[in-house]
């Protein structure tokens, strides 16, 4: 019986690359592709894949919250997180969310097959940096990184994090209500609670909070040095 894999990434071109990579492996099949976290959860419930590969930086519902919700629904889901950065904070959040694999997108062509094989053999797969961090936590505290130390999101509920992401992506309360199938009034209440809990005073503050805490990710433009002879058209 084939190992069934669900892919979740908002870039179709990345999904095509991942598909091409995974389907070369005999005995594996990509059973579904999702372009955001919300769709990934729906598809995972329907398709019951053996492995779910989620990008962290997805719109509507990021990969970390997708992982949390998937494992809350069924703790047997095996999730590999794909990320563009392996900062300590991202690593801690991914582990805390329950991911069993952690692969840098830049290294996916090299590491992803090994990661899926590890999960297939009921093992975990992490990059060397994650292993170092886990080991350091173990040596310091006598145990692996504690699940009781989430970084900066201690006070928000799962629903509040969803609302935070959608507001930070620029959606109005009405649009958030439509996405989450809630009333606008309920969204407004969540919004007030979020602002109060986090001591924020504006949507701008909320966006900054969302970026700092990896709820949304942004791509910075390169520092461009223009040649002196360049003229504007």
């Amino acid at each position, binding site marked *: 019986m084939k190992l069934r894999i669900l892919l979740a990434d908002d*870039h179709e071109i990345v999904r095509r690359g991942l598909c091409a990579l995974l389907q070369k492996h005999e005995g594996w099949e990509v059973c579904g592709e999702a372009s955001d976290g919300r769709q990934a959860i729906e598809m995972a419930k329907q398709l019951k894949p053996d492995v779910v590969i989620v990008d962290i930086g997805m719109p509507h519902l990021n990969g970390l919250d997708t992982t949390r919700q998937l494992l809350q629904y069924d703790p047997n889901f095996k999730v590999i997180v794909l990320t563009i950065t392996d900062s300590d904070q991202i690593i801690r959040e991914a582990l805390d969310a329950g991911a069993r694999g952690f692969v840098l*997108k830049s290294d996916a062509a090299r590491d992803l097959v090994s990661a899926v094989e590890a999960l297939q053999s009921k093992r975990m797969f992490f990059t060397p940096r994650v292993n170092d961090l886990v080991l350091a936590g173990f040596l310091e505290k006598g145990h692996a990184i504690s699940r009781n130390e989430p970084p900066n999101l201690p006070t928000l509920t799962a629903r509040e994090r969803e609302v935070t992401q959608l507001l930070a992506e620029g959606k109005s309360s009405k649009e958030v209500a439509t996405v989450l199938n809630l009333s606008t009034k309920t969204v407004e209440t969540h919004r007030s609670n979020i602002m109060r809990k986090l001591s924020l005073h504006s949507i701008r503050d909320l966006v900054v909070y969302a970026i700092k805490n990896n709820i949304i990710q942004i*791509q910075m433009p390169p520092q461009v040095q223009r040649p002196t002879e360049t003229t504007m058209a």
Partner: protein
Amino acid sequence: MAVRILLVDDHPIVRQGLRTLLEGRPGWEVVGEASDGIEALEKVESLQPDVVVLDITMPRMNGLEACRLIQRKTKASSLEVLVVTQHDSPQMMREALEAGARGYVVKSNAARDLLEAVEAVSQHRVFTAMARGPQGSY
């Protein structure tokens, strides 16, 4: 029409996705890959592609710098550069066109726009498409 293409992106998985898409087109050939701007310059010289599909945010040398240098090096040739980037920004598109790119496609829509864009730039037509705005080929 035969088109020889060089892919430049620092993520192998993105190059694989682009390759899968482009190689489905009869007559088009991905002749090489590069993972940053410096490697792109070397491969442009050695492989002489017709079209360079170029990412912007890359280590060592970003795509805008690479594009300018490719244009300087290949003034007399018919090589064209198509930028494929995450930056869904009119300002970045303008920078890319000023650097000498003939086309600009946003990565989130690459699966939709890439084939049309490569076809356009290989015929020396401009192709630009933002993720949310109108696209144009002229």
